[in-house]
């Protein structure tokens, strides 16, 4: 777990790093994250040249390739504004692993500096924006799945639930073994499909058993995995990224 | 080159160079600041939670309490030492009791089967207790050898309340263990147990199935 961060005052501007999964599969979630930040009076800069944080190659052991891709992202954030990432997994990569990945290279200092400005979206909304949400949605039982990277790598088990708790119509239900991994793990799901499947099976059963009508998560990998499992079984229980859920219920 | 030399050589000629040894701060395992009452209460609660039985007595009535335990548990043959004040006093007090006293200052080879099969309980002194974990500490001696707290089905341990200290770390430090380790130093925290059959607790798997701790208080029992 990362040490408690000393949070800055709310800035005028932030960068958003949208992540490749959002770019390709869940772009609305990225846009909703931008809308939530803009509603707080913050100007959002979305560097057009962003692609991917490099994590897929990093966790697969291809560190030369990961470093090349990460390096391409480093220069996208020249001003000292915070960098908001709507994903614990990519946020954890950039905050924790960039310094390791660039250790001993000419860009180490720059990687550390960028890493120090990385915030996961819910973290930023809670600890920096001190956001106040007004719920306009219907009464609903919702389960939150916090990704393992957000929970353990970034130490953010509480921020997602804290935001949902502000929504008057939302009853947050806790699934059994809430802290357990959903089985995504990037290439793990491909290399060990059966083990991964057993994990997501248990996760969906737990969410259903908790009486949830809907689930939200702060990571699109988990969303793709858990949501894909529900859909495969033709279950009505669906999920969405927390940015979309918050925006949908409060706008 | 011998295995010893080549292993040490590899360790000494480490590829990434010598390592820095960090300093250690042991604050977290000491300084509990419990008073005697808290120590006794904690000791009893902890050892009780793992099936240890605690009986309170005074310096004057403890042998009577011991006799009651022997009767209640139908102990007919009790193994105990001959020199330590605890077994000396117990022997004196049990003269008229029907229990048979079994000498333990004999080489185990001469009475292995007897000790394994026909002793009902072993009585030992203790050097002290540890409040944090509900543990007894024993340094077995020729007078009170290692196996009498292990082989008989019941172990009766005599503990003086003022010898209970806060933590294991405190005991090691205050009594200077590092300068005089005996052949065998031992912490005992409850009777022998296992959970190897589907996490179900069972007592007395190899050692005693019962541990009775008779705490001697200077005045009236609390």
């Amino acid at each position, binding site marked *: 777990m990362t040490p408690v961060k000393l949070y800055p005052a709310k800035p005028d501007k932030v960068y958003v790093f949208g992540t490749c999964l959002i770019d390709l599969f869940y*772009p609305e979630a990225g846009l909703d994250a931008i809308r939530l930040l803009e509603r707080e009076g913050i100007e959002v800069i979305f560097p057009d040249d962003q692609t991917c944080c490099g994590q897929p190659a990093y966790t697969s*052991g291809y560190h030369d390739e990961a470093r090349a891709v990460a390096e391409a992202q480093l220069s996208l954030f020249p001003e000292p504004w915070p960098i908001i990432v709507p994903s614990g997994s990519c946020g954890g990569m950039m905050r924790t692993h960039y310094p390791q990945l660039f250790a001993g290279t000419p860009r180490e200092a720059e990687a550390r500096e960028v890493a120090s400005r990385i915030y996961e979206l819910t973290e930023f909304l809670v600890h920096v924006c001190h956001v106040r949400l007004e719920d306009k949605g219907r009464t609903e039982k919702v389960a939150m799945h916090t990704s393992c990277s957000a929970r353990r790598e970034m130490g953010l088990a509480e921020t997602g639930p804290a935001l949902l708790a502000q929504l008057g119509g939302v009853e947050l239900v806790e699934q059994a073994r809430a802290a357990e991994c959903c089985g995504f793990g990037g290439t793990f799901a491909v290399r060990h499909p059966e083990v991964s499947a057993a994990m997501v099976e248990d996760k969906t059963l737990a969410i259903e058993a908790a009486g949830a009508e809907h689930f939200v998560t702060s990571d699109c990998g988990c969303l793709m995995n858990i949501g894909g499992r529900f859909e495969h079984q033709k279950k009505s229980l669906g999920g969405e990224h927390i940015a979309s859920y918050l925006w949908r219920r409060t706008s | 080159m011998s295995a010893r030399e080549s292993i040490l050589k590899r360790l000494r000629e480490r590829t990434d160079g010598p390592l820095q040894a960090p300093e250690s701060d042991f604050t977290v395992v000491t300084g509990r600041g419990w008073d005697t009452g808290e120590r006794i209460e904690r000791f009893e609660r902890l050892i009780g939670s793992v099936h240890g039985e605690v009986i309170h007595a005074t310096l004057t009535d403890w042998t009577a309490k011991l006799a009651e335990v022997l009767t209640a548990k139908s102990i007919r043959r009790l193994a105990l030492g001959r020199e330590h004040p605890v077994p000396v006093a117990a022997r004196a007090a049990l003269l008229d009791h029907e229990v048979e006293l079994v000498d333990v200052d004999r080489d185990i080879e001469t009475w292995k089967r007897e000790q394994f099969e026909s002793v009902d309980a072993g009585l030992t002194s203790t050097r002290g207790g540890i409040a944090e974990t509900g543990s007894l500490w024993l340094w077995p001696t020729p007078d009170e050898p290692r196996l009498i707290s292990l082989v008989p089905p019941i172990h009766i341990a005599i503990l003086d309340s003022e010898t209970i200290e806060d933590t294991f770390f405190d005991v090691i430090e205050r009594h200077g263990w590092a300068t005089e380790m005996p052949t065998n130093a031992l912490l005992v925290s409850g009777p022998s147990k296992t959970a190897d059959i589907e996490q179900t607790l069972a007592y007395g798997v190899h*050692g005693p199935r019962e541990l009775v701790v008779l705490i001697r208080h200077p005045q009236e029992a609390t």
Partner: protein
Amino acid sequence: MSVQQFTPQAFHRQAHEALGDPQIRANFRRAMDGLMTKRRDVFTDWDLETLRELGANIRLRALAKLPDLLEQLETNCQTNGIRVHWAEDGEAACRIIRELCEARGAKSVIKGKSMVSEEMHLNAHLEAAGIEALESDLGEYLVQLNEQTPSHIIMPAIHLNTDEISEIMHDKTGTERTRDVDYMTAAARAQLRERFMSADVGVSGVNFAVAETGTLCLVENEGNGRMTTTVPPMHIAVTGIEKVVEHLRDVPPLYALLTRSATGQHVTTYFNMISSPRKPGEHDGPEEVHLVLVDNGRSNIYQDDELLDTLRCIRCGACMNHCPVYTRVGGHTYGTTYPGPIGKILMPHMLGLEATKDLPSASSLCGACGEVCPVKIPIPDLLVRLRKEAVGEGRGNVPGAGVKRNRKEVAAWKSWQWLATHPAAWRGSTAVAGKLRGLAPSRVGPWTEYRSAPKLAKTSLHALVKAHRRAKDEGGES
């Protein structure tokens, strides 16, 4: 006695079989849930982070001084009358133990729990030499009766339930079929007591070896460890070279972490500290005590600053108890002496990456292991490091480095790299992907066996942001 064979090479098949066995699934799930709860509850009144910090610090200090401490341990043990032997690998350690047995004309060995002895396949070695080796830890005994190896380093028989154990004991020892755990425990007690009395040699592991005093510490609940090290006339302790600690005062924090992390106990029933053989005038304890220090790959792990952390391990098994993969596939699936997360970062060094190539990847990197490790081993980082070694992008410090590198996969990552470092091409490709989404396969490999395929969005975030900006500039909201 032939032992049921599992191999790391067959990880996928073994995982498939375990996942399809509802009994295995239920046994592990129930056991791991219980262990996780007990661990959580036992640490509630502790400053756990500070204690873990101290535990890590003590282990790091021991490793920093390792060669000196091993020599100090040796000197102090020998002063105390404990003879010390060094073994380069498991085979050498087996030979040392066999020769010690043979020198006494020993025919039977009773064993306390020792994972190092499992690592070096001591039982098979002794049996081949005509020396019977009998496990006395109840779980180990049951596993041995069932001709298996342990499926967990602390709870060897955790994969078996009460009915299965009853059946094994009935078959092999003639006890009644029952669900009465006390009856089965009492039966095993009676069976093993005979063997303690008659054994020529006791072989045990070591939890901590204290350099400053020459003391061997053994942690246990059952009392079989004390029996093994006290009743037979000769005691042979066997341990990895990394188990040494500098001072006696280093022991209480590690012991506190070990029992709480392993089984959620405040303390174990026995903490047995042995510093010498029986002295003149003493009436029990072995006449001879030997300590066998086993390297078996550890000094290679020691060379590398990052891999070194692997050697901090105090073998509590908490990483297994909290691992979502271990919980589902059980210990045998790994096919290695040490299963679960610690096995995945340790066994490649002992067996090479070729034999263990599926182990480092068998993790979602969820981090649960690293979070509970009492000595703060960064297990997920070490898994990533081993993956890096396996694909040939590491330092080559692990046997079999580069074994997983293949042209097809490298080409795929190079293409990905090219695209992700050429933003215009990336934007173009995401736009194209969106337009061609109807043509995307609805089944992509193993993913879609269990889940619907993810759908490419019509418009990328890049494009959405552009439209959003335009709308804002024109004064409206998108």
